[in-house]
Structure formats: C-alpha cells, structure tokens
C-alpha cells in the first residue's frame, strides 16, 4: 500500500515540533519510557487513519481525540495540532502528502488527490491494524479462545462474518418461535369452522356439499369447486342475517354448547385428578427449599443455554468462550438432571391444561361478543374476569416457576365458579328465546357464519404456512451460511497456521526448529495450541517463556497481515513489541523481519538501546534510520541526541552562566556517546551485570581501543607498504593523543567519579575550554566526510577495517599475510 518518507508533528499529544525523515526505510524510535515514542506512533496512526486507537473505543471513558489529541497547551486550539506525512505509494509510483489537523480529522489535505490515491488511502484507513502494540500482540497469544477469536476476527475483519452469522441465527430462532402459536391458532379456527359447517371432517367435498344444500334453499347456483377465492355465500343478497339481534341462534347455541363442554372438562374428575396430582408434585418441590432452588437454577440454566448465542455476557459484556461456557452449564444441568426430568414431566402434564384454559378463554370471549351483538352485554359481564384469568394462567403454565404462584393458580382452578355457569345459562335463555329462523334465514345465517369462519381459517392457515416457510427458509439460509463460512475459515486458518509456524521456526530455529501450531476455528472461538519441544500441544501461555510468547504474537500478526494484504503489506508500526525477547532471539527476529518482509517498512519503538543496537547490527536498520529520544518535558516535548543540538544547548547554558545545567548535559551526552563508541569500536569494557555503566567506565576504554586500532591500522599499512596511509594515520593518531590529553579523560580510569563531579563548581571561563576539548575529542572518532562515528567491521570475529557508513573512511586493519 504505502511507505512513509517523512513525518512532521506539531502540537500533537506530547510533541511540540518534530520532523523525522524515514526515507521509506525501516526506522526505529528509541528512548526511555515517557520520552515521547508513543506520540510518534499516535501521530503516524492519526495521519494515516484520522484516528488514534489509544484515545478512542471501549474503556477510554472521557478521553477523546478531539479534546486530548492536541498538546496540553494547545487543547483549546485543535487546528494547531497537525501531522503531515509524506508517503510513497509503490503500486502507483506516486508521492503523496497527507496533512490532518485534530480540528478536522476526517478532512485531510491530500496532495495530489487523484482518485487512485484516495482509493489507496481509504484502504489504509480501513486497516488500523498496521499499528501493533505489545498489548495487542499478547492478546493474540494469551487470550482465551473466545477473546482470541475476537482479536483475530477483528484483524481479518471477520467480525463482519460473525456478526452476520449471529444475526442469521437470531432471525432463524425468532422465525421458529412464531410457528407454534400460529399452529394453535390454525387448529382453533379449524375447530370453529367445522362446528359452524356442522361436518366432522374438513374436505373440499364435504364443505361444498354442506354449502350447496343451503345455497339450494336460497335458490343460489351450486358451487363446483372450492378454491382460495371461493365464497360460500357467492350471489347471496343482503341482509345477510334475518335476526334482529344479528346473531345466529343455531350457531350461538352450538358455541354455548362447546363452551359448556370445555368448562365441564375443566371441572371433570380427570382434570381435577390431573390438577391435584400436579399440585401434589409441585408441593413436594416447594416443600424442600433446596429442591426449589435447584428447580430455579435448572430452569435458569436451561433458559440461559437457549439464549447464549453472543460472544459476551449480556449483563456485564465480558467476553466468554461460548463452547466452554456451554460445557460448563451443561455440566450443571447434568448434575440437576433429576430435577430437570421432574420439571419437564410436570410441564408436559400441564400443557393440555394450558391449552384447555386458552380455549375456554377464547370461547367465553366469543359468547361475550355475541351477547354484545344482542345488546345483552350485562349477561356475560361476569365471565370477563374469569376469561382473563384463564388466559393468564394458560400463559403461565408454560413453566412451573414460580412454584407458589403456580400452585395457587391451580388450586383456584379446581372448580368453575357458579357465576360463570349461571351467566352462560342466562345467555342461553336469551338465545333460546330468539325466534326460530325460517329455512331461508337459517340457510343465510349458515352461509354467512361459515364464510366468516372459513376466511378466518384460511387466513390462519395462510399465515401458518407463511411462517412455517419463513422459518424453514431462515433456518436453511443460516445452515448454509454456517457450512460455507466454516469451510472458508478453516481454509484460511490452515494457511495462516502454516505461515505462522514457519515464521516462528525461523525466529527460533536454534531450539525449536520442529515447532508446529494448531489453529482450530469454530464459530465463536479460535483454539490455538503450540508444540512444546515435541512433548505435545499446549496453549501458548502454558509452558513457553514470555519472550517466546512475544515472538509468537509477532509471528501470528505477521502471518495474518501477509495473508490479508499480500504484496500490499508494505508498512507496519511495531510499538514496543518484543520487549521481553531474549538477546539470542532478537537477532533472529531482526533477520526474520529483514529477510521475510523485505518490502515492508517497519517503524519500531523501543525503550531498550540494546534492542536498537541489535536492529542496526543485524541490518534491519541501515544508515541514519533511527532517532534516540533522551528526555521529554511538557514545554518542549521530546529532545533527541543530535550532535548539533546538544552542543548548541550546552553553549546556551554556558551563555546563561548555568554551568550546572551545562555540565549535567555534557556528562549525560558523553555517557550516551561513550556507550555508542565502545559498541562501534568493539572496546573491551569491564562487564557489569546490571548494565549500569558510569562515564568513567566507558570513555577510557573507548579511547584505549581507538589507540589500539590506530596502532593496528599503522601496522597493517606498513605491511602493505602504504606510505600515504601510514602518514595519515600518524597524523590522526597524534591529534587524537593531543585531544585526549586536553580532556584528561583517560585519567578517569584511576578515579571514575572525580572529574565530572567537579564540573558544576567551575566558572564559565573554566568550563568552556572543557566543552571545547570534549567536542573536539568526539570529533576525532568520526569520519571527516559524513561525521558518523567510525565502527569496526565486521562487528564480530576478526576485525578487518575501521570505517564509516558513507564509505569515505575505510581503514584497513589486516596486515599482509
């Protein structure tokens, strides 16, 4: 996609004004904690995506890019907080400038703003994973399978795949749940229709026969077929009912009869026996608090198992491992199996009672409506409460909890209140008093009610068929989705698994050259087990050291990125990753990055200068491809160890007669440079296990080594009979000796703390010559052309030359054989 050539950061996060020249190459930002490294990472992410992950998203509370992106002294002026990057897009061979301000992060100024450039930048924006922190890296390795799945899925944008799966499942489940109630409704309308038609079986022939009998009475032509649009009363004139009441006497009496029968069934001995048996069983459960609690728990677990379909707890939103959770809950359910069996048995016995109560409520409501049509609402008024109660209990009996409430409802149902029986009898009296319809009126009533109930039944069946079809369709879509996505993901993870194992083997080939890993995906989780020295496969955190785990995280990230972006993986920021990798493997990791990802520009941050050195010596970083932050303050932001700036700063302190500050800075800088010189010159230094070297322990060895190198170089030049070189070396050696003498630095070895501790007691006139002497001494360690400190090459084994990176200085150290 892109490579970053330079970045300029102004008034952004902890940085006031900083420009880094990356030149499209690997680049390292090194410095102690709190010196502004992460500010550079934030600025890169902001410039490329318009966002800073650390300031947005879950758990960031009141912190935001808008409010806290600008430097703290510019928080009221977000327009001043700006980042500009110069990038190259290799695929387009174009160089592009992107400048964003915190005031308008979504409106960068892009030059040139060609469509192909915008397309690439949009793609970069969609891949914020180009920035990887150690926290994220560890998430890939040490997370639970569920959390890991989320991390990896987010990286691969598979969260969309999972989101679609869970939504399709939700749709399928919802559709399933709609089918059963509609089936009950279809049965109810079916029974109503049969009763109205006065037939025993609902077939086209029987319906037509019954209808044509009535149509013949009215002189209407016979119907020969029954289609979805056929009306039984086709051609019948108004009024449709002859009764002044608008109620069919015959049908009303039939409905009364059905209602009575259902009430009789409710009060029957068999129902009473059923109720008393269930109540007795429930009493047993309720009598033992432990059992009741178990019933509640079992019901809770069972319901939970049906509802668990998300990747996180709906209460606290903590992620969970779906399969592990299901196994765990199933274990509890198994433990409560006996209680479960009892509960299910009781609920099965309650099901017909619930259905009967629902039917009674429907029938009573129907009679009430007919009473209203007869302007006799009062007659049935007393049944209203009972009907509501029946319906409520019917709904409640789908579960046995809460036990006490269910027992109470069932006990009250043991007999039908007399008021209900009386109300129905009164209504029956009213209906019976209606005049008998004539044969024609009877036929007209029959056709009207039959048609109405036929339509109700048709609509109910139609809805049932639709819902059934929808449920089937939704389930089919879900099943196919699961099958195909599983297949695709298995292939994807297999490829990533191979690449990951290969990368890890490369980085750890000294002791794990037979390493392998297993990534086992399933919906909602990603199992990840790794081989531990041939002893079997275990979770990465089980036996491997932290350093190995860091290495695994990086390799997994690299494998995933290579799979996602392919040749487009040209840029990544590795923010303080691999901090715990041991020295031996750091070199291998550097080699891995250099050789396996030669087309990827890595920006690496670290607080560890030894790490930085490894990156350089292994060739991951070449030339001036790093910046070393020495400190940070809120007024100026990070400051770098840059030669020119350091001497100017020291001069400034002297100018202000602040010798204490000048001497402190000189000492600090000399400590840094001495360590660098010892490394470059391969100077023998007395080893310290705590790696806490004082200036007097580093600078004298560097000077001594330089003298040794001059001597070796002169010997080599003599053996090759190189007179000019010999003269040049003698001159440099003499000057070097004079400069050392001027500083008296080599005397420190005798007493390492005397000299620099006394600097801050010097006056301005006394300290200026000291600074001058050290500046010139350090200059004598550099290439006269490029100003870089000289280094011994190679950095291991027999020294062959003393040289710089520009090539202008290359002094032979090997004598003629």
């Amino acid at each position, binding site marked *: *996609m892109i490579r970053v050539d330079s970045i300029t950061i102004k008034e952004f996060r902890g940085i006031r004004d900083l420009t880094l020249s990356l030149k499209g190459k690997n680049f390292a930002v090194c410095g102690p904690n709190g010196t502004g490294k992460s500010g550079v990472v934030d600025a890169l992410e902001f410039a490329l995506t318009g966002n800073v992950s650390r300031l947005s998203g879950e758990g960031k509370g009141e912190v935001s890019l808008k409010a806290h992106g600008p430097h703290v002294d510019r928080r009221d002026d977000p327009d001043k907080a700006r980042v500009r990057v110069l990038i190259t897009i290799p*695929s387009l061979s174009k160089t592009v400038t992107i400048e964003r301000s915190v005031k308008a992060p979504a409106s960068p100024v892009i030059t040139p703003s060609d469509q192909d450039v915008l*397309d*690439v930048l949009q*793609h970069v924006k*969609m891949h914020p994973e180009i920035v990887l922190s150690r926290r994220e890296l560890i998430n890939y390795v040490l997370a639970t399978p569920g959390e890991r799945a989320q991390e990896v899925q987010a990286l*691969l*944008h*598979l969260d*969309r*795949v999972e*989101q*679609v799966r869970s*939504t*399709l499942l*939700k*749709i399928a489940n919802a559709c399933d749940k709609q089918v059963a109630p509609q089936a009950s409704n279809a049965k109810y309308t079916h029974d109503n229709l049969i009763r109205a038609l006065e037939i025993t079986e609902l077939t086209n022939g029987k319906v037509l026969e019954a209808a044509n009998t009535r149509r013949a009475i009215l002189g209407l032509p016979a119907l020969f077929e029954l289609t979805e649009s056929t009306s039984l009363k086709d051609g019948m004139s108004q009024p449709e009912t002859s009764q002044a009441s608008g109620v069919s006497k015959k049908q009303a009496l039939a409905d009364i009869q059905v209602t009575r029968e259902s009430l009789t069934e409710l009060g029957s001995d068999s129902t009473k026996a059923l109720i008393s048996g269930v109540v007795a069983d429930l009493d047993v459960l309720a009598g033992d608090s432990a059992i009741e609690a178990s019933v509640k728990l079992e019901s809770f677990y069972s319901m939970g198992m049906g509802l668990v379909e998300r990747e996180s707890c709906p209460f606290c939103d903590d992620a969970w491992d779906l399969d592990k959770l299901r196994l765990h809950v199933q274990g509890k359910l198994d433990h409560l199996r006996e209680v479960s069996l009892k509960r299910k048995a009781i609920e099965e016995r309650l099901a017909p009672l619930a259905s009967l109560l629902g039917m009674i409520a429907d029938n009573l409501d129907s009679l009430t409506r007919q009473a209203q049509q007869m302007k006799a609402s009062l007659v049935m008024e007393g049944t209203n409460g009972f009907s509501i109660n029946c319906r409520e209990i019917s709904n409640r009996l789908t579960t046995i909890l809460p036990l006490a409430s269910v027992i109470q409802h069932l006990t009250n149902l043991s007999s039908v209140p007399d008021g209900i029986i009386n109300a129905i009898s009164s209504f029956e009296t009213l209906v019976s008093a209606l005049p008998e319809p004539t044969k024609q009126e009877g036929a007209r009533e029959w056709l009207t009610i039959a048609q109405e109930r036929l339509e109700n039944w048709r609509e109910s069946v139609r809805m049932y068929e*639709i819902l059934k079809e*929808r449920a089937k*369709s*939704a389930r*089919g*879509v879900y099943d*196919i*989705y699961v*099958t*195909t*996505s599983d*297949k*695709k*993901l298995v292939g*994807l993870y297999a490829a990533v698994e191979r690449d990951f194992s290969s990368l890890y083997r490369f980085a750890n080939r000294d002791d794990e050259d037979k390493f392998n890993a297993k990534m086992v995906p399933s919906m909602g989780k990603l199992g990840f087990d790794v081989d531990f020295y041939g002893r079997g496969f275990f979770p990465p955190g089980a036996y491997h050291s932290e350093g190995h785990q860091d290495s695994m995280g990086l390799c997994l990230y690299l494998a995933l990125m290579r*799979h*996602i*972006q*392919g*040749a*487009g993986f040209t840029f990544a920021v590795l923010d303080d990753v691999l901090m715990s990798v041991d020295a031996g493997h750091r070199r291998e990791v550097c080699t891995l990055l250099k050789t396996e990802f030669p087309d990827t520009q890595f920006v690496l941050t670290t607080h560890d200068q030894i790490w930085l050195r490894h990156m350089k010596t292994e060739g991951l970083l070449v030339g001036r491809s790093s910046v070393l932050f020495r400190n940070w303050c809120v007024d100026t932001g990070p400051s770098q160890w840059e030669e020119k700036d350091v001497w100017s700063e020291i001069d400034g302190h002297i100018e202000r007669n602040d010798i204490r500050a000048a001497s402190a800075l000189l000492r600090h800088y000399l400590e840094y440079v001495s360590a660098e010189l010892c490394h470059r010159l391969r100077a023998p230094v007395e080893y310290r296990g705590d790696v806490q070297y004082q200036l007097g322990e580093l600078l004298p060895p560097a000077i001594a080594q330089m003298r040794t190198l001059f001597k070796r170089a002169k010997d080599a030049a003599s053996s090759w009979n190189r007179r000019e070189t010999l003269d040049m070396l003698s001159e440099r050696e003499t000057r070097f000796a004079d400069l050392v003498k001027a500083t008296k630095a080599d005397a420190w070895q005798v007493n390492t703390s005397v000299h620099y501790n006394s600097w801050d007691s010097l006056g301005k006139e006394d300290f200026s010559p000291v600074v001058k002497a050290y500046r010139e001494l350090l200059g004598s360690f550099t290439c006269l052309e490029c100003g870089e400190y000289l280094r011994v090459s190679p950095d291991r084994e027999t020294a062959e030359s003393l040289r710089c990176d520009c090539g202008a200085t290359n002094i032979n150290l090997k004598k003629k054989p």
Partner: protein
Amino acid sequence: MAVVPSPEIDGKQDIPAQVFESFLLELESTGASSEMVARLRKTLLDDRIFTEGALKTAIFGEEMPQ
C-alpha cells in the same frame, strides 16, 4: 461451477467478501430464489449492511410481514 475470482479491495483480499460470495453461490446452488440471492448479495456485498432488519428484508423481501 465456474471459478469466481476472490473479491478484492485495491488488489488485496477481502476475506469477509470471499465468505459472503461463497455463501451466496452455495445458496443459489441449493435452489434458493434468485431474488433472495440478489437481495442478499446487495446487502452483504454492495451495501455492506449487517443489521437484523437489513438481513431479514434481504431474506424475505419487503412485502413479507415482519
């Protein structure tokens, strides 16, 4: 079945799009209505909307009761 090139964005693989594409091809091969497949294709691949409402409409069509 014809080989369908992997969906790509700016020349890079878009894995979710590949998953969706495979799903749609399989759905079509199992006899799902071409209208449904077209609606799902538009929702998943063109509009990239993954809400319950959008997917329900894509499966059942606008005219179906929700």
